[in-house]
């Protein structure tokens, strides 16, 4: 077993979102959704509460439809593992405005903290890089974030940042889970319309 990771997921996500400006944010189900909500609810956050494996694809569709806006996907290692093929699909489209953060605690946090594949060394940043992402990195220390966050928000995409975080549990912070509401308020905030 490796040394335990010490990076706090909540403080890392807060550090990332502090500089979001008008970025469009999609969160993967489970803890990444709660981490994002803990920073503060926002109409341009689209929280997934299910549809496991879809976070990167939702981000891809959004990035293709809104090429002038930055799109940030925040998801976990388990959710990313379920949708690995999406990394190949993103790499083929090469959206310049898409960044993916994988909050990797090496466990399935929603279901009893069973070890995930990344605990055995499956390298999500490496997979993304070999798929053809323009840039990927793995962050293990809080001090590295100061250098990585500006890149995350501005570098030409698609990029992936894997945060190796502690598997400690944080208090639940639950955003709205009415999917139709989340969709309509996002479109209202972005497009000033809710109808097609």
């Amino acid at each position, binding site marked *: 077993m490796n040394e335990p990771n010490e990076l706090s997921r909540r403080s890392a996500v807060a550090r990332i979102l502090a500089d979001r400006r008008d970025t469009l944010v999609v969160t993967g189900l489970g803890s990444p959704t709660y981490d994002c909500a803990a920073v503060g609810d926002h109409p341009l956050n689209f929280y997934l509460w299910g549809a496991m494996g879809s976070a990167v694809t939702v981000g891809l*569709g959004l990035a293709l439809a809104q090429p002038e806006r930055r799109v940030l996907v925040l998801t976990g290692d388990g959710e990313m593992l379920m949708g690995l093929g999406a990394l190949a699909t993103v790499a083929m489209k090469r959206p310049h405005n898409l960044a993916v953060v994988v909050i990797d605690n090496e466990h399935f946090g929603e279901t009893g903290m069973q070890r995930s594949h990344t605990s055995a060394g499956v390298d999500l940043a490496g997979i993304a890089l070999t798929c053809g992402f323009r840039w990927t990195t793995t962050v293990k220390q809080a001090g590295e974030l100061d250098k990585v966050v500006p890149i995350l928000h501005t570098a030409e995409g698609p990029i992936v940042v894997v945060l190796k975080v502690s598997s400690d549990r944080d208090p639940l912070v639950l955003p709205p889970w009415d999917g139709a509401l989340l969709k309509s308020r996002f479109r209202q905030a972005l497009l000033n319309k809710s109808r097609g």
Partner: protein
Amino acid sequence: MTRRAPECDGAQSGPVAAADVQHWPNLVFQKLREFDVRHVTYVPDAGQARLIELCQTCREMEATVLTTEEEGIGILAGAWLGGERGVLLMQSSGVGNCINMLSLAKVCSFPLLMIVSMRGEWGEANPWQVPMGQITAENLRLAGVIVYEVTEAEAAAPAVEAAARIAFNGGLMVAVLLSQRMLGAKLFKD
């Protein structure tokens, strides 16, 4: 709202031969253009090969090949969040891959337009296609999808038009199933 660029007009120019104008893929393509469908997500499929080709060569469409069909449901949800419309093209085997992901469209009322080539449904030569093909329509209906079953080529474009209107106006999931009665069955012969 319609935005039709001449180079994408399947009836008049571009890759479409004049004699081909009434061929169902061209008519379906025209309907997609009329409904301002921009994102075309697909897993390659022989039955819809011509339609996929038309979409790929249209500069106003964004064609995205998928590693598995459920990726299309996520991409089209994201595109709708960003203000744009799309379609998912696949075979009936892919419907099985999509079942849980349909919950995304269902719970959020995202419009979801799907065009599905049937396998294992009518005169199928490959027995491995039959189990999924025989339960495709029923599975879709169980998941809350409106299903239009098309058995004749001339009915394809009207079905896509009807499906697109219901899907995009109502935030509903609609699948147009293209029967092997119109597409023919793959016979595994050189």
